[in-house]
């Protein structure tokens, strides 16, 4: 698994308060009970910050699952390694 995917998974675990190692690749808005509007904004802000991206509102609307976030990252590029 590449570094980008691992970092995205860490973001999902942190935002949705899941334990280390929890499987997040099947997470979606419909399946994650604490995925609400506020959690969504936290997720987008964390993705922007971690990958050095600036996502538009339309991009943000497209993030409805781990899978869609990963697709967006592939499309947008973003930093390949953490800068922090």
């Amino acid at each position, binding site marked *: 698994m590449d570094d980008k995917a691992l970092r995205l998974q860490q973001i999902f675990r942190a935002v949705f308060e899941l334990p280390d190692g929890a499987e997040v690749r099947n997470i979606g*808005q419909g399946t994650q009970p604490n995925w*609400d*509007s*506020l959690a969504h904004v936290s997720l987008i802000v964390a993705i922007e910050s971690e990958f050095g991206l600036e996502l538009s*509102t*339309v991009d*943000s*609307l497209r993030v409805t699952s781990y899978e869609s976030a990963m697709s967006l990252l592939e499309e947008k590029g973003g930093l390949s390694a953490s800068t922090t």
Partner: protein
Amino acid sequence: MTEHKTDSAATASAQVLAAEQTPPEALAEFYRQTWNAKASAEAVTRALRASAAGNAVRPGQAPTAVTFVLADRVIGYLGSIPAWFWDGSGEHTADWLKGFMVLPEHRNGPVGHMLLRDMTKRVSVAGSLVVAEPARRLMQALGYRGLGALSNRVLVLRYGRLATRISPDRLGLPRFVHPWFGVIRAAQKIGLAYIAGAVAGAGVRMWHAVRRLRLRKYEIAVGGAHATDEEIDTLWNRVRVGLASASVRNARYLRWRYPDGPNDAYTFIFVRDAGQLEAIAVIRRPSTSWEDRLAGVKLATLSDIVFRTDNVEAGLAALAAARRVALRFGADALLGSASHPVLERALKESGYVGLGGTLHFHLRIPEGKHSFSTDIRDWWLTRGDGSSDGGV
């Protein structure tokens, strides 16, 4: 997140707009999908103009409302009701945030957050009565202070009809009420429901009749025309001195907020003692309840009530009259909510039983010269129109 711009990689654009800048047809389509299946672009334009013309707080201005528009389609909405809030020494313009709704397929995304953030930039002092947890979390994240929940109370008007529709357990009624339901249910099984209902109802009616004797000195008038604006303002000025914080109930506000015409949803009740106005109650005519616990029940709402905190008897007289008016409208039960302990006590004394709190009061107090209490028990809050916001 970068807002208000078209995404270069997508054909769609997304932006938050003021309602009056939103294409009326797009707004009408949103209304049709959420609140009113018959909404048209013309009706939406008319309603916006009427709300500006009738605005009691900022005459000529449409109440602040924002929409989230995605590719020419409205997918979220947040409105407001202009008001004044009393802080114990002065009245300040404010807004009740109301009608927070995002289409189901776009919930739990950025829409609710962006709508609330945009609205927050447009309003100053603002309050909101919110039921849903996600909306409450958003409000707190954007600087609204959660002061707690109003207590909901219900007055059962027709035990027989209520017992056929719901169980007391589901309603959350206290144990002492359960025997009434048990007797009625058993009687229904053997075909004596009418008699059992009548017996239960007769006992309760007798209790209310005895109470009415105690309150007979008060004159009751039903209908908005039965008091002048001056009388209402005089009462409000006497009421407010006993309150630390409240939404203002002067004549301008009450008459605008609760239209009382023949085709309107509200009815005013005025209570006088020796010719002087001492209390006002506003009843919303019954509709089938939206609340899960009361699903299927024909529920009238005690939308508002005003009386001096040192004159609870006048409040009790208003509540007794409200009960009779709700019965006349064919309601099975009358629902009220209160934050102030004096109103809560009056509801309790009038036979209302507790349902717990679902309406959470959130308050935004920007920097400025006001001293609103942050204790919900200092606030005189009631239920308003009784409807709930949708999902965000």
